[in-house]
């Protein structure tokens, strides 16, 4: 009898420990920071506008139900903030942080979907055997084909905890984290290549949306909606 009760107690303790560990593992935030360098190559000599983005960086920060994409270039500094819960997007805020006219606009999940409607129909081909190492991670090639037949070549790794699909809708059919991607046309190539990947702690302040001297604007999914809204406003006045 005593042996049975001891065994039961041991089993109970092990179960409690297991549940605790599992719960802790779930609430433990996943931190990811990826920095992509932007490289623009043009086939013909042009004015040079591309140089204002060539050499810039795009950084993605993900931590504890918050994410941020930040573009830094000569021409502009712009961020997209995401709030989500259990892989469900709650709110998106896009902010132009630089220049004399800084502004932000907020998008509902539906509006964010509309904002990225060009990626509604994607086809991902992951059957390639090509591989390369990007930022120290072995990556495999895939090709994403958009609805309008545009293609984006990507190199992805499954060694990194992948970011949520809504953060990068273009990569939602890629089974991993994309560390390099490029778009080419007759006129040239735009390449995003990861230079640094980190999973260290990310300061919560990085997910704070700046609001000083920033005008709040309204997003309209298309010109028609915008015109209609303007007409309604005039009638109200």
């Amino acid at each position, binding site marked *: 009898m005593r042996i049975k009760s001891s065994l039961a107690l041991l089993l109970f303790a092990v179960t409690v420990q297991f549940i605790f560990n599992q719960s802790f593992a779930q609430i433990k935030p996943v931190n990811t*920071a990826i920095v992509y360098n932007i490289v623009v190559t043009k086939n013909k000599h042009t004015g*040079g506008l591309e140089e204002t*983005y060539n*050499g810039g960086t*795009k950084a993605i920060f993900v931590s504890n139900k918050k994410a941020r994409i930040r573009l830094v*270039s000569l021409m502009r500094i712009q961020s997209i903030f995401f709030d989500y819960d259990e892989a469900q997007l709650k709110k998106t805020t896009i902010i132009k942080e630089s220049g004399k006219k800084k502004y932000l606009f907020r998008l509902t999940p539906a509006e964010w979907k509309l904002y990225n409607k060009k990626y509604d129909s994607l086809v991902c081909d992951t059957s390639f055997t090509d591989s390369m190492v990007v930022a120290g991670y072995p990556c495999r090639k895939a090709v994403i084909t958009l609805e309008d037949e545009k293609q984006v070549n990507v190199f992805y790794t499954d060694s990194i905890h992948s970011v949520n699909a809504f953060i990068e809708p273009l990569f939602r059919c890629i089974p991993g984290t994309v560390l390099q991607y490029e778009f080419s*046309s007759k006129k040239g190539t735009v390449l995003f290549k990861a230079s640094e990947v980190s999973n260290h702690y990310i300061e*919560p302040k990085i997910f704070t949306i700046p609001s000083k001297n920033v005008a709040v604007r309204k997003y309209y999914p298309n*010109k028609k909606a915008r015109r209609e809204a303007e007409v309604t406003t005039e009638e109200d006045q």
Partner: protein
Amino acid sequence: MADNSNNILKQLQQLEILPPAGAFEKAWQAIVQNELAAEGDIADAERIIFARLQEHELAAPPLDFSRIHKTTEQKINRIIPVYWLRAAAVLLLVAAGSILYFSVFRKNENSPAHYAGTGMVKDSAGEIAKNDTADSASRQTASVNTTPAVVATEVQQKKTIANNFVNKTKRNANANFSSGEGQLYENDVLLTLVNYKSQDWEAFFTKAVTEKRITLNKYSYHNLSDKMVELLQETYLTKNNGKPARKARKTSRKFEKWRKKDEKYFDKYLQKNPADIIDLSEFILKKN
């Protein structure tokens, strides 16, 4: 009898016999000659000794370094023993190391960023957060208030330093611009680069053009191409009278034209995302 003897003595006492003529002179001459002869011998002897000394050679003993070292060591040992010197050197090293550790590393460790966690992201992340808007000084103040009370004093110091830095950079063109986009004019990299004369951002411009890189923080930077460096330098070309050269005005107009294009494409209808590869490619490759 006695009287006789006294008389004889008196007579003898009074007796005078003159020397032969010239005897005294002869005697004096002989004495002087003898003295001169003695002096001459001494001078000759000295001369001989001096000459011998001049010609004298002493053959040096063969070099014996071991003996020299031994002698030297013995002398040093006599002043400060070697083991004392070694101990002093170790103590000095330990003291220097401790000072460095406590003054530099411990300070960083106690910083708000370190309290929040470990790793490299937080530093830059903190910087990004701190410098999110054009007016970073106020944001820094805001962010500082949220830090733990334990580091309040240090944070206050940092805050003061930060504020002083901002004030200094506004006044002094040679200030350090290595960190913080908050120091940028309107938080805009290009605006800062092309307006440095009016805004005192010369140091920022010089650093950017020299290093061909603008670093806002670890994760936010822009590498300048040779072409862009050339264009940026062109904006500051002047004529002999100090006024902007034609090329400079032309380049400035070019930048302004690009900005308008960029704003029209991305800001007018808010339909395009500059961080999106397709939208960005369309703008850069097609519209340009």
